[in-house]
């Protein structure tokens, strides 16, 4: 025989920790963790906000000086380009006075120059850099005796300094060495000197 002396709603679990208590504790812990996370997040967020505002203030203070510095840098770049272009332009020329002055050192005494013609052509290379190319034609006369030797000696002079650093090639064009039609005993000649291109780099 079984006698139940307790009502159903009065029944209690034999366990020291009820499921309901566990649920409430768990919920409390979760809520606490959520609240703690929100607190940390808020503190962190405010800190970041303050940091951003501080950076903004610093930038507002720095920006005008930075803009001026950048403007100076850009203008410096333009000025440097202008300066380089001016130097390139200057260096692309040839000082003809000095070239003529040096001529005396390579012209044999028995040669008389009758005509010197300097001409310039403009060259543009593949990367759009212009340059000057000079050509000089020397016309002269020399006595028949040893005339070939004299002319070759003059020609070789362009392979020596100071001409060697300017003259790319010096040559007698075909038919340029011949008898003088007036003074039959003399020889006349023409030497063409092509100068290295002077690029405006």
């Amino acid at each position: 025989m079984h006698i139940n002396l307790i009502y159903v709603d009065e029944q209690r679990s034999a366990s020291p920790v009820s499921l309901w208590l566990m649920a409430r504790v768990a919920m409390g812990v979760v809520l606490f963790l959520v609240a703690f996370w929100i607190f940390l997040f808020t503190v962190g967020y405010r800190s970041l906000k303050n940091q951003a505002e501080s950076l903004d203030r610093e930038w507002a203070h720095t920006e005008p000086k930075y803009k001026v510095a950048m403007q100076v840098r850009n203008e410096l770049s333009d000025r440097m380009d202008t300066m380089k272009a001016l130097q390139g332009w200057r260096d692309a020329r040839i000082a003809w006075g000095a070239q003529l002055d040096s001529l005396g050192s390579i012209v044999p005494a028995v040669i008389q120059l009758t005509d010197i013609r300097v001409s310039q052509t403009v060259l543009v290379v593949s990367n759009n850099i212009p340059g000057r190319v000079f050509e000089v034609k020397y016309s002269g006369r020399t006595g028949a005796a040893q005339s070939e030797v004299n002319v070759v000696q003059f020609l070789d002079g362009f392979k020596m300094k100071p001409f060697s650093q300017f003259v790319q090639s010096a040559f007698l064009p075909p038919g340029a060495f011949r008898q003088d039609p007036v003074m039959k005993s003399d020889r006349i000649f023409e030497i063409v000197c092509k100068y290295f291109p002077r690029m405006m780099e």
Partner: protein
Amino acid sequence: MKLPESIKDRMVFFALIGVVSIVVVFVVIQWGLFPLLASKQALESAIVERQDKLKKAKRELDYAPGIQKDYDDVTAQIEKIEKEYVFRPILGSYLVGVSEQIDAGALATGVRIESTREIGVVDILLKSKDSSLKAFKLFAVQVSASGSFQAITRFLMQMEERNPFFGITDMTISGQPDNPEEQLLSVRMEWPIENVVNVKGGGR
């Protein structure tokens, strides 16, 4: 609060709690947590960006005195070139000043100037359309003169030394059969000028 008595009801009850909890967690994460995290992340990115910008600006400011000095130096050099070597027109004409220079050079070296003919203002060789030299042009003249070879050499040297931007582009020196000591000089000379003034002619 009492839990339902039957196991079946309890299961339904807990399942309901589970579903509601999942929905609540989803809503909180989707419309609460994610936007907050995204906002924080955006703020952190903005801070990093501002720090980089500030660091770059400070580095630039550290170089600023040196850059300013370079700028002053280069500007002074360009101004010196413009002041000393770029020709200025006199009453709208460059020829007067150019002729003065040529005459002075000829007088000092013993060259006789026969004529100085104005060719005019010509374009300079430019690297490209936006070249830094677009601010300049050239004023060209054709000079005819005579003198000994040595005098002509000295004359040209003097002209070239006086202005390193002065240029000779075409030149002929011819001997005279009846006067071997005297050479005839025909030379095209060019001076840099500023690309601003509309120059009038005026040869002599």
